[in-house]
């Protein structure tokens, strides 16, 4: 090969090297900065804590909740449109007696989360599935009987302005 052909080959090779560097740096930078801060478990935890603090008063469960006269959104200061209509949240509150007999159960939001949370917890690949947290505690009713309160709260909230 003569000198000119050598020079041309070197130019092409040089651009290939630059391209590899470009792809590496851009790819690495994007991978680093595009990883999202996952708040789903925290959100579910905050939601269940809010409900727990709202329907339990000094160890006694609200009688209005047992009697199904409880407006959870108004009393707990929660937006109904976000929980019920956004599809990004799920909330299940159930109360059992000592014989594990269901007394009352209320569900709000995206009910598909019950199955999806189980799948998301079982499979590490299911990154986009919602995350749920479950809390249980013993409470008393007005008659002083011991009851078990279960709260399951799930979230899949990841809102970006350009997706609206």
């Amino acid at each position, binding site marked *: 090969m003569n000198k000119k052909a050598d*020079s041309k080959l070197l*130019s092409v090779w*040089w*651009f290939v090297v*630059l391209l590899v*560097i*470009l792809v590496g*740096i*851009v790819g690495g*930078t*994007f991978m680093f*900065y595009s990883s*999202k*801060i996952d*708040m789903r478990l*925290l*959100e579910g935890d*905050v*939601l269940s*804590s*809010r409900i727990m*603090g709202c329907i339990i008063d000094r160890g006694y469960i609200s009688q209005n909740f047992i009697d199904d006269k409880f407006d959870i*959104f108004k009393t707990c*200061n*929660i*937006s109904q*449109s*976000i*929980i019920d209509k*956004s599809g*990004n*949240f799920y909330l299940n509150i159930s109360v059992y007696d000592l014989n594990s007999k269901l007394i009352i159960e209320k569900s709000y939001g995206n009910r598909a989360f019950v199955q999806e949370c189980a799948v998301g917890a079982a499979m590490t690949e299911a990154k986009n599935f919602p995350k749920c947290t479950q809390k249980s505690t013993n409470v008393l009713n007005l008659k002083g009987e011991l009851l078990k309160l279960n709260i399951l709260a799930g979230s899949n*909230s990841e*809102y*970006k*302005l*350009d997706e609206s």
Partner: protein
Amino acid sequence: MNKKADELLTEQIIFIVLNIFFILLLLLFVWRVGTGAATAEERYAKKIGLAIDNLKLGTELKMDISELYVYLEKNKIKDNPVTLDYSKNIVNVRVSSGKGYSFTYFTSLNPGSVTINETSKLLLIKS
């Protein structure tokens, strides 16, 4: 100068110009991403959203957002770094020229519940 030398010079100039262009492009990209404004927007939007949801009724919370003002000055943005859409339950943090980062909170907040003290660079949340 002869024709062969002319061709060689043109090739070399094009090669050097393309190389400089490539390096500048790469530096610009890394500098843009490396300023950290995008991650700060996401971090603060989520932090504020979670703080709103975690706040008990009748309580107040003050949050230091001075880091956001550093990015505001750096990017020459004059708007408020934190804005809330109370009807849609969205908190938006914007400290760069883009749209910022938005995050939803589930608490029903009254309009004006979140204010910014620009002198002390504190965010005040009243639940």
